[in-house]
């Protein structure tokens, strides 16, 4: 356990030894502040939860790759990976430690948005359970995406490529949701026109619906809707945790595999 903490702490602190940590915080606070003030100016109400959701649906595409691109690729490029892998720490400890390092950074960033909550409370603004739901959703979604980023970083020793892979995976998940209904109806129309299997209209509709649902299923953002409106369920949280666990597991496998077939 102390090894995981040691790695996590080192990684967290390293964000502030280069501009990257400050750049991430600045982007986040800037966008958050912009949304907060524009809400106030145009609609005369504060929506801290809504801001977070807006950020999670777009800004994550930039923030998450920036936050995770260095984790493993930098270690490999510098040769410090040797230190970690020849230390008594196991691969699992290394992966979890590095992941926690990014998570600490993410939580620090999230905490900076509490300023807006404080301002809202001070000025008697609208604070309800939905904000809590949004925060929980925001953090769990971020945690899942971070694991994707850590995975991407373990695949390559080039930070830029790692960032692009993370961006593509997250963007792909978002895109899948956007084209889900179109893809579903196109498929059912196509099958209807070809009419190869003699399907009825009802069956065709069901197939189309299944494809739409299938494409929506892996997309994390669709699972936030209930949380956002203050309905707390276990299933989306479990989904995010499983997603994170899956990608961390894959990261561990990638590192193990490289030991067997390096160069």
């Amino acid at each position, binding site marked *: 356990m102390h090894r995981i903490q040691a790695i996590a702490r080192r990684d967290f602190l390293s964000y502030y030894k280069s501009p990257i940590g400050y750049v991430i915080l600045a982007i986040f606070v800037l966008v958050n502040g912009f949304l907060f003030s524009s809400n106030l100016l145009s609609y005369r109400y504060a929506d801290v939860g809504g801001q977070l959701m807006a950020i999670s649906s777009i800004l994550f595409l930039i923030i998450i790759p920036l936050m995770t691109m260095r984790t493993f690729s930098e270690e490999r490029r510098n040769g410090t990976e040797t230190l970690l892998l*020849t230390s008594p720490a196991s691969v699992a400890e290394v992966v979890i430690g590095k992941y926690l390092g990014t998570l600490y950074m993410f939580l620090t960033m999230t905490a900076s948005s509490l300023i807006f909550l404080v301002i809202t409370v001070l000025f008697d603004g609208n604070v309800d359970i939905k904000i809590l739901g949004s925060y929980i959703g925001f953090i769990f979604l971020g945690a899942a995406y971070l694991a994707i980023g850590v995975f991407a970083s373990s695949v390559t020793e080039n930070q830029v490529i790692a960032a692009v892979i993370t961006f593509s995976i997250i963007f792909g998940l978002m895109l899948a949701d956007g084209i889900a209904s179109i893809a579903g109806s196109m498929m059912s129309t196509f099958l209807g026109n070809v009419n190869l299997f003699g399907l009825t209209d009802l069956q065709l509709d069901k197939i189309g619906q299944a494809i739409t649902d299938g494409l929506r299923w892996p997309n994390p953002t669709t699972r936030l809707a209930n949380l956002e409106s203050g309905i707390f369920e276990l299933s989306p949280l479990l989904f995010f945790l499983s997603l994170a666990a899956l990608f961390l597991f894959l990261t561990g496998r990638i590192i193990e595999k490289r030991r067997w077939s390096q160069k």
Partner: protein
Amino acid sequence: MIEIRNLTKYYGDNCAVNDISFTVNKGEILGFLGPNGAGKTTTMNILTGYLSATSGKVTINGHDILEEPQEAKKTIGYLPENPPLYLDMTALEYLKFVAELKGVPRAERAKQIGEVMRLVRITDMANRLCKNLSKGYRQRVGFAQALLGNPDVLVLDEPTIGLDPKQIIEIRNLIRDLGKRHTIILSSHILPEVQAICERVVIINKGIIAAIDTPENLSRSFSKASRLQVLVQGPAKELTTKLRTIPGVKNAEVVLEKEGGIQQLVLESDPEVDVRKSVFFVLADNRWPILEMRSLDPTLEDIFLQVTGPQTAGRRS
């Protein structure tokens, strides 16, 4: 202490290490020699657990590196070819991190870090960023890192690379000192260094062990005849004929004629007979002054070239 048995490593179709076996005894300093690409670093990476072997077995202190990696790795301090430093940390921060990673108890950390920093003489660099350290200092911080946690086994990949001559001597003395308490494997391409420090030498070439013995035994077994180089002022032809008459001398040849009638000769003689005295008297009787005389025992370098290179390379003197 360290047992390597039938170790083989393939990178794709490329065989980097081919069925090598050797053991390192407790408290021994073992030198690992070989040309570039011989498989030195691969072997070291495998026995520290960074890479996995294609087949074969490595046990450290009775712990198999694959089956009980935690236990095995606890007993190893590894200094890779490029010291694994986090460039954005100061030397002190870095060593604190490594101590934590290696599970040095909190109470002992400060003391142990102070100790290793004193040993490798980086105390005055403690608060410099690793980024701003010179190659020599980076190497020393890497050395300090390997020493943390007081491991029984030290694996050092080219420990003196990038150091200036004074530092090299310091580090060599340090390694010799450490050898009293630790088992050390060090790789090097600097032959006199290995000759100076190591009790036993493994010469590896193209992934195969070419020779393994003490440096002295290696010299002895590779010397077919002892050779003597003499610098004499005198006529070349008469010199060689006179010298050949000395009992025990098999051959005498002028290898180089210098200005002022100075001849550089190489004598080959029976290894059992010391011909130096007779050579002196023969030359003195003829009033041919000896300017220099030294024996050309095969150095580790000769042996190295002989076992690793093409056959002709071994004849170089």
